């Protein structure tokens, strides 16, 4: 009986394979080469980073995806890739938003991490740290706002996300960065898309998963390019890449420990983002084409033309249209009075988009939110500028 020949790496046909990449078994070395090559091609062809000395602002959170992004950006800039040493003549700066101020408030065992050694010494990239509370005139207002928001439904996480977004875009524009790079891989983008859809952000279908999306900053009409160069990769690709290239530990703070029992007992500790991550991850295991089917569908979808294109001052997204009253209210008289009151008595109710309204529902001191009381001056300025 003929013995089956042991399978070899599909690319080099020499080494034993270690991982499956898009149905092909590849060895460690070829895998790293694939990731580096894919990253360069993404930047050049999909993200249109072609000009010499083009400035790229890489957003780093300390998580696995952004760590991989910083490592790859560093290799490409310093020509330290394992394969193909061709250099990209771009300027990469790394921006990290330090959330210790709010994390310490909600997670008792939280330990702040110092990434200076990794970014500055190991990756040799300029590193800027901005404290999340620095955007607020009174930082304790931020904590108060988070406490006022609902524990459930990712309201607090969404609020933090939009504050960070304001900081990133403002920093990018003030420092002349036209390109802002995020580290989400394809699987995370698909999960994020589903999460946004579940919160009512249908318009995100046209932008949230693109390699390269143009964003007009409403304050001064400056154009920013939002980039996702790791879109081609899956979770397992990132994990394996980091295992081979990095010695960093990724502390796993126990999420949900600080929540009330009612919320803790909900699916995914009441966190919509985590629920959708789990959903996509589970489907991806059973149906390997899930991620790329979702991303490909999102690319082809078209959005209904809007009567007017104006932005929400909180999330900076374009305000979507409500096609039926029942999307926003019920006819049981339980929320109509409140909606009418807020509409008549607050300054910015009509400027807040559908999804941000959902984020604010069940919040305490709603009037303060809709009057942007205590909010960063930047956000108030944007709200006053928007029609």
């Amino acid at each position, binding site marked *: 009986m003929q013995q089956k020949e042991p399978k070899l790496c599909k690319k080099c046909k020499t080494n034993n394979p270690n991982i499956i990449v898009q149905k092909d078994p590849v060895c460690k070395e070829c895998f790293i080469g694939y990731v580096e090559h894919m990253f360069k091609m993404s930047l050049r062809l999909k993200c249109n980073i072609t000009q010499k000395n083009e400035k790229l602002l890489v957003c780093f959170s300390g998580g696995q995806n952004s760590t991989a992004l910083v490592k790859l950006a560093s290799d490409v800039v310093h020509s330290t890739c394992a394969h193909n040493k061709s250099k990209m003549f771009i300027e990469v700066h790394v921006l990290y938003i330090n959330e210790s101020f709010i994390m310490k408030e909600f997670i008792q065992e939280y330990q702040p991490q110092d990434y200076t050694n990794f970014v500055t010494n190991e990756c040799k990239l300029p590193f800027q740290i901005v404290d999340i509370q620095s955007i607020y005139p009174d930082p304790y207002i931020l904590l108060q706002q988070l406490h006022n928001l609902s524990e*459930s*439904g990712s309201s607090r996480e969404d609020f933090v996300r939009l504050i960070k977004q304001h900081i990133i875009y403002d920093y990018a524009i003030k420092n002349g960065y036209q390109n802002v790079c995020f580290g989400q891989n394809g699987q995370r983008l698909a999960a994020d898309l*589903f999460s*946004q*859809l*579940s*919160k*009512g*952000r*249908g*318009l995100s*279908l046209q932008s949230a998963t693109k390699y390269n999306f143009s964003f007009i900053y409403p304050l001064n009409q400056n154009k920013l390019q939002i980039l996702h160069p790791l879109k081609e990769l899956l979770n397992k690709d990132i994990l394996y890449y980091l295992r081979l290239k990095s010695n960093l530990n990724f502390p796993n703070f126990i999420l949900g420990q600080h929540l009330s029992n009612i919320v803790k007992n*909900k*699916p*995914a500790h*009441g*966190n*919509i983002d985590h*629920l*959708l991550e789990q*959903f996509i991850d*589970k*489907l991806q295991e059973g149906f390997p084409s*899930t991620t790329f*089917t*979702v991303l*490909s*569908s*999102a690319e*082809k*979808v*078209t*959005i*209904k*033309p809007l009567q007017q294109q104006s932005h929400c001052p909180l999330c900076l997204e374009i305000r*979507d*249209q*409500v*096609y*039926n*009253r*029942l*999307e926003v209210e*019920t*006819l*049981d*008289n*339980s*929320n109509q009075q409140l909606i009418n009151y807020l509409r008549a008595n607050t300054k910015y109710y009509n400027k807040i988009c*559908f*999804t941000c309204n*959902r984020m604010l*529902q069940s919040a305490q001191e709603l009037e303060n939110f809709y009057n942007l009381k205590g909010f960063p001056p930047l956000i108030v300025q944007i709200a006053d500028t928007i029609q």
Partner: protein
Amino acid sequence: MVKYCQSCNTQKAFMVRPKTGNLICQNCFFQAFEDEIHHTIISTQMFQPGEKIAIGASGGKDSTVLVHVITLLNKKYNYGLHLYLLSIDEGIKGYRDDSLETVKQNQITYELELKILSYKELFNWSMDEVVAQIGLNNNCTYCGVFRRQALDRGAIQLGVDKIITGHNADDMAETFLMNLLRGDIFRLPKSTAIITGDDGDNGIATLPRCKPFKYTYEKEIVMYAHYKKLIYFSTECTYSPNAFRGHVRELIKNLEAIRPSAVIDLIHSCEQLDAPHQNQKLPQKQLCQKCNLLSSNKICKACTLLESLNQGRAKQILQIQE
């Protein structure tokens, strides 16, 4: 401590409303439930006075509540509609044969004309026979395609203007996510359309299908049926456990548990989508060369599936003879 209804602030609360998470009394719940369906019908100009409407009735909770509410609203607000019951017998023993008894009961209760069509008489195949042939993979595809055509045929025989079905908000949200997961971008914008089939391309008349329960939660339909003491048949289809929709259904339930408005939020997201661009190749609507019903190909999906089934049966007969 007594908890009061958050709508009227007068009566004692008797339940938490699934759509809002607010406390509500029985009267306010029934009122809101019916008012919201009435608003859905009026705001979308779903019906015209004098129209003949076939209600897709399976005997399940959705169609039973649909029959009850439409009959009630038709009288209360003078829609001027002529209502008929249309039932499809897929031929699933222990499931459909039992639920049809419920439909017959509804016929008597609401004094409506009832038409029952079966897969066996239309296609010469019952679902039990289909599953025996193809197994438990893709059987929902066969059933869905056949049911669509069966409803059309039944509606033509009744001479109605529109069909209404009990598809609720949860169903629509599930369909939206499923179409996104399967990459079906042509169906994506129509996933939550309240009236489908009324576009009449190429001069080919199609029977519009309407979904008055578009903004109605499945849980609320169950509660309405329960507290109104409506009789319905509640068992899952024998062949559905392996359906892909089960994954999405579980997701929707979990989302609802976290944030009650998530189902409506998904519908709102889908409403932002437009039909595919004109430069994207769209299937052209035409009439099937075999059965003369609406199709996007020369031979419609139902006839294609039937052919594959009949070929399988022909192969079996030949094998037995050998």
